[in-house]
């Protein structure tokens, strides 16, 4: 039986539902040494900002039980260098490219969205709303439904590319944020970004990360991410890209059952560069075994009361 892996996320068409997560896959080239990136559903590139950023001092990485903290601080070459240097190389990867953008004001988000060409390999824009709103006291845009909505609204005006709103998990009510971005022009929701965490070196008594706090990712966060995907699936009708700790196909199935129409692989790349490919194959085999013709049949099944039988029926 052939399983149809194609995935259509409100205008973003992918050959399969497996993407790579922003910030964990550089601008694609690093992992091109391991396999042909055109096998992926798509790649999401490192978050770009209007101006180049040299990011935070080191240490930027700390390990945690089944997870890691990072405080890279959005190091990136800036919009201009991205367009002139990175984009032409991305064209050659022959895969759907999602560009992750980060602004420190509404205008920055708008400028970034406006500058990304609609006729290139760029298949969608992922709007990272976890950045601090420096004009408004530094709380992240993504922690308040109103400011999250505003970011999407201003970005929406600037582009016809599909817009993915990337949600921060560091909030009381993820459903409220999801509704706000859905009401303001998001086509797709991706989640979760990293959980805010911290470690202290007991030898020196100081935080391990130069930046004191950092973002937690990896398997440790998986149950929180699955829960939030489940909640957002209940809260809004937009397609969801699920991520957070996915390291094998079983994890990916779990996210799709919770409501994700596609998944992103992040930290797992660091441990097993072949993880995204293994996940594509595992998803296909799982569908075949359960008798599904399309991988999209999995989406949201955990919301039904009945159990799956061995042949995928209820």
């Amino acid at each position, binding site marked *: 039986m052939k399983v149809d892996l194609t995935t259509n996320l409100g205008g973003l068409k992918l050959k399969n539902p497996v993407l790579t997560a922003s910030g964990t896959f550089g601008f694609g080239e*690093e992992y091109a040494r391991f396999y042909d990136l055109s096998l992926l559903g798509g790649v999401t590139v490192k978050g770009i900002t209007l101006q180049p950023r040299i990011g935070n001092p080191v240490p930027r*990485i700390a390990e945690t039980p*089944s997870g890691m903290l*990072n405080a890279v601080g959005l190091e990136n070459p800036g919009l201009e260098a991205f367009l002139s240097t990175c984009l032409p190389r991305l064209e050659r990867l022959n895969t759907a490219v999602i560009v992750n953008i980060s602004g420190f004001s509404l205008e920055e988000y708008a400028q970034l969205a406006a500058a990304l060409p609609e006729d290139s390999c760029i298949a969608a824009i992922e709007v990272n709303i976890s950045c601090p709103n420096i004009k408004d006291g530094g709380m992240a845009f993504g922690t308040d439904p109103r400011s999250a909505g505003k970011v999407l609204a201003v970005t929406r005006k600037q582009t016809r590319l599909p817009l993915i709103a990337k949600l921060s998990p560091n909030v009381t009510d993820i459903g409220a944020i999801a509704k706000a971005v859905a009401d303001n022009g998001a086509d797709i929701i991706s989640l979760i970004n990293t959980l805010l965490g911290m470690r202290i070196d007991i030898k020196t008594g100081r935080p391990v990360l130069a930046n004191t706090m950092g973002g937690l990712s990896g*398997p440790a966060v998986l149950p929180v991410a699955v829960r939030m995907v489940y909640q957002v699936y209940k809260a809004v009708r937009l397609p969801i890209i699920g991520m957070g700790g996915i390291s094998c196909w079983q994890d990916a199935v779990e996210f799709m059952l919770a409501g994700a129409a596609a998944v992103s692989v992040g930290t797992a790349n660091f*441990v097993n560069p072949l993880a995204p490919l293994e996940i594509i194959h595992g998803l296909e085999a799982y569908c075949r075994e359960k008798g599904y013709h399309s991988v999209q049949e999995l989406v949201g099944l955990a919301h039904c009361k009945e159990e799956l039988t061995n042949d995928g029926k209820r």
Partner: protein
Amino acid sequence: MLSQEKIISHRLLGLQHGIHQLVLRGAIAATAQPGQFVHLKVGATTEPLLRRPISIARIDRARGEITLFYRVAGRGTALLAGAKEGETLSVLGPVGKGFALPGEGELLLVAGGIGIFPLFSLLEAVDRSRVKVKVLWGAESREFFEGAGLAVLRELDVAYEVATLDGSLGQKGLVTDLLASNLRREGGGQGMLPSVMPGFGRGDSVLRVAACGPRGMLKAVTELCLRQAVPVEVCLEERMACGVGACLGCVCTVTTAAGPARRRVCTDGPVFDGREVVWDEG
């Protein structure tokens, strides 16, 4: 780049410092270069999560074997120490840009503590019929050297000097003291190429330094070298996640024409030109 390597031998060199020698057979040996490293998966579960970077210390292309030396520093290396001969490890590598391999002149290898390990591979790779090589190595005590491959140095039959903090072996003091006196021995003012080993320093001979060790030591080595216009390469360490240049976790800062810039220790290094490295940053 991703290789299942078989453990050919695995042994503890000395209890006190917990240094292990690990010989792996697989695809890595074919292309490994001195100064490169491997990124090792140390357990079967997600805990510990990340791979561990370990320098390639010896490369035996004929047998397809690489040798690593590592110190048990925390839970990852402690787990690695339990891996048994005959088992396989998932190894990512060889990673990084290694040392320049001089074809002539003089080469001074300067090591602090376990910083000796990547220098072993350079020492073996360099053509010693054409390049004169000497090793300067500093550490805490005599026990350290004995548990950290001093035997390898002896076996490689190279000129070396050691310094210990407690004076239990070689000169009492720091490896930078050894370096300073080696550089001083032959004078060598600004712009003039100094030559440090007896019989060296004739005409076209060029002295280079390759150093590895704690950051403070590398900084001091670089300053000593720069003062005498001696080219110096340093092998840096930084906490790594991906090990392939994708995560930007492991950067250092270098000076460029356009101002300070970040470089990835894993793929732009771990070996850098000492002159470029910005040693004092926040």
